């Protein structure tokens, strides 16, 4: 099944059906196939743990039922981007792009993704870099989390990028996992999507037919679903360089080191010459079907003088706009309270950095 959203969506519908069957308590949101994608599947590891712990007598032996080897697929390692794009076009809907692999391979082991062909971008090394071109930073899709963490110019201008990179996975995962892979994968509990929305970044995708530049806001359509077509590759992230008086912070609540976010909040704010907030971006992680911009909170802050009261009001608006699900990270009510807390912390930290 190839939908406009790509073959991945089809894979997840199939997998979601299977997963829902094995859960002890049916998810009330699983009434439609669309909603099978939501909520508890947000975190592959927790999905796996839930699946592993579920009774399986009706489903045969665990060896068949809970495989840790991915299903068979073909593999190709193109020498450059052009060849990769041609292959994606020829195999439209069949192929998935492999970057670091630390998101995709766990899903393939669980049969939540079953591509017929993996197109490994390992040798497409011209997507690895980070540079500044005019008023924007350009981060290659294959730049690893570690490279982002260690890039001095990026970290100095946008410390929020260091905040986020430092909290992703663990050192081994940061060594190999890439920003493009994470963004294209679009786990609602992944950290980059909220950060990119707070920064009003753009996402560059290429196909054999050319290039599209898509605003990060609007790119994340649903759980694991983005605006990327099956024939496109995410090649670059573009982030405007913040002006004077700007500061940002990413605050992540995790149950233990290296875990996915329970709640995450990204804030980038700019204080104008009149002491008022002239620009504001707030992105939230793990409290919706897709990561989203907390626009109600932004509206409350734009043009206001920063104060504890207005920050509290905005954090409340962010919480009310969030739609968290009950899962192994905690009940929705707890997560909504944590949105208030993490948004307040991110605003406070961003303001400190904005004042320099």
């Amino acid at each position, binding site marked *: 099944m190839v939908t406009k959203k790509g073959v991945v969506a089809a894979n997840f519908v199939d997998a979601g059906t299977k997963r829902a069957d094995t859960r002890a308590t049916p998810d009330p949101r699983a009434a439609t196939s669309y909603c099978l994608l939501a909520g508890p599947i947000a975190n592959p590891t927790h999905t796996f743990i839930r699946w592993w712990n579920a009774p399986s007598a009706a489903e045969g032996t665990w060896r068949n039922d809970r495989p840790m080897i991915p299903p068979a697929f073909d*593999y190709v390692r193109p020498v450059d981007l052009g060849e990769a794009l041609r292959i994606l076009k020829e195999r439209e809907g069949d192929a998935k792009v492999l970057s670091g*692999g630390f998101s995709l391979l766990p899903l393939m082991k669980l049969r939540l993704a079953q591509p017929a062909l*993996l197109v490994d971008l*390992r040798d497409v090394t011209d997507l690895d870099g980070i540079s500044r071109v005019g008023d924007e930073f350009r981060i290659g899709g294959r730049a690893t989390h570690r490279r982002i963490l260690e890039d001095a110019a990026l970290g100095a201008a946008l410390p929020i990028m260091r905040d986020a990179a430092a909290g992703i996975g663990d050192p081994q995962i940061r060594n190999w996992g890439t920003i493009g892979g994470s963004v294209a994968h679009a786990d609602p509990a992944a950290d980059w999507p909220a950060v990119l929305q707070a920064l009003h970044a753009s996402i560059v995708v290429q196909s054999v037919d050319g290039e599209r530049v898509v605003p990060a806001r609007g790119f994340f359509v649903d759980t694991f679903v983005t605006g990327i077509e099956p024939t496109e590759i995410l090649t670059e992230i573009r982030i405007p360089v913040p002006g004077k008086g700007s500061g940002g912070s990413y605050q992540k609540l995790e149950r233990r080191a290296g875990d996915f976010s329970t709640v995450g909040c990204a804030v980038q704010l700019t204080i104008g010459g009149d002491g008022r907030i002239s620009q504001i971006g707030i992105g939230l992680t793990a409290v919706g079907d897709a990561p989203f911009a907390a626009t109600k909170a932004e509206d409350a802050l734009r043009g206001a003088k920063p104060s504890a009261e207005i920050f509290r009001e905005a954090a409340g608006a962010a919480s009310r706009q969030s739609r968290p699900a009950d899962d192994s990270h905690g009940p929705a009510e707890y997560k909504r309270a944590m949105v208030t807390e993490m948004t307040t912390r991110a605003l406070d930290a961003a303001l400190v950095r904005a004042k320099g």
Partner: protein
Amino acid sequence: MTTHHIRVTVNGTEREADVEPRLLLVHLLRENFGLTGTHVGCDTSNCGACTIHVNGTSAKSCTMLAVQADGTDIKTIEGMADGATLHPLQQAFWDQHGLQCGFCTPGMIMQSAWLLGQNDDPTEDEIRAGISGNLCRCTGYVNIVKSIQQAAGELRAAGQAE
């Protein structure tokens, strides 16, 4: 599905294999090459027991395909000792009781070796952050941290002596 012919250098020795694309790197090492020092723990890239070096960078080999490693230089726990002389990290884990059951130890040592390559004088916090992707269910990490501190000191002294 077609098989792929891959060549890798493992602990200084060139090796070749015909592999299915879905073969995980850790299984290539353990089952094709008989290098069972690298352990499979969680199989979900959480626990770090399968940590090895690929082109000098630490990686969790349960979440990498063997075909992805084609042409790379791989180092595993079997490549750490020099004949009968243990690597300073191995010796330090022995001296400081940095293990009990030993299941996590190969991954712990490979990750520590990568960490000390990045930072030869890490603080305790930096050590704990550096091994945050490696789980030990026995030691409570205290003796592992001591082991890495001992090895860091010895490696620095050896570096200065050269």
